[in-house]
């Protein structure tokens, strides 16, 4: 193991599943919320709480190696395309679930950005573990 791998080894989460482009995943992210409540006479009260948000979509690309790996997840929310990039090994990413696999022929599925509706559907692939 070289020194760089040694440093990163401690940060790599072993509980991450094998993710491939075209997979439909559910990413559980911890988010901090601050709500500001008015208490009259210009007084406000801030309360901070943490909750887990789930982002579900298609993996359109994987990037980087080791502890620096990221995944780009795309979904269409109320007709608007939304993409989020998650650091795979970030402690704020609680869990990544793989729901479906699809047969794809590219490493980066950026062409899905131009597709709408049924044109963006993909053939499901049976798990080959």
């Amino acid at each position, binding site marked *: 193991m070289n*020194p*760089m791998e040694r440093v990163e080894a401690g940060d790599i989460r072993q509980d991450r599943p094998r993710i491939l482009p075209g997979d439909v995943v559910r990413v559980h992210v911890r988010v901090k919320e601050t709500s500001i409540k008015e208490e009259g006479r210009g007084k406000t009260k801030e309360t901070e709480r943490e909750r887990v948000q789930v982002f579900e979509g298609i993996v359109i690309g994987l990037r980087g190696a080791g502890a620096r790996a990221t995944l780009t997840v795309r979904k269409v929310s109320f007709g608007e395309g939304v993409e989020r990039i998650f650091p795979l090994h*970030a402690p704020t990413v609680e869990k990544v679930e793989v729901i479906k696999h699809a047969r794809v022929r590219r490493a980066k599925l950026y062409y899905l950005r131009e597709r709408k509706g049924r044109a963006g559907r993909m053939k499901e692939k049976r798990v080959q573990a």
Partner: protein
Amino acid sequence: MGVQGIIGRKVGMTQIYGENGAAIPATVIEAGPCVVIQRKTAAKDGYEAAKLGLVAKSKVKRISRSVKQCYEKIGLPPCRVSREIRVDADAEFQVGDRIAVDMFTPGDSVNITGVSKGKGFQGVIRRHGFSGGAKSHGSMFHRAPGSIGASAYPSRVLKGMKAAGHMGDARITVGNLKVERIDVENNLLIVRGAVPGAAGGYLIIIRKSGAPLKG
């Protein structure tokens, strides 16, 4: 107070995660172990310093006789890399002392000196941050330095005028970097932020004065 610095080799950059889950840009440095190979004193050398040698991982074979004899005199195996570090006159250390990463504690503040990456011959915009002119709209002034002085007086270019020329490959010190982690077993030091030079370059890491001492 002993020697406050160590010699290291830049391994490269990565990111680590802090307590709140934030990604921290970090540089991995293989620091030490070092040995003190000479003590320079004001009486003899005109200044106070400790000459450190980075302990060689493999035997140093090709070495000039004069250097070899220096190491024979102090009874230590020869080192490939050595650097001097300034010390106080009353600093407590001896020739032969070993210095390792355990001299640092996470949270320490350090200054790191190294040789920056060479950038070649660069113009005034990249080298000195000049603004330059417009690219279009009839502008005929693009990346040139502009006026470098007046005519009749002083009739010459003032010394130190910023001009195009060789950039980089210079000794640079980056101050106030925070030690994030140490790995004593593997001689690794992880600091927050960037450090001069390419991976594989040698660095001098000095604890900032005023930082709390360990032990």
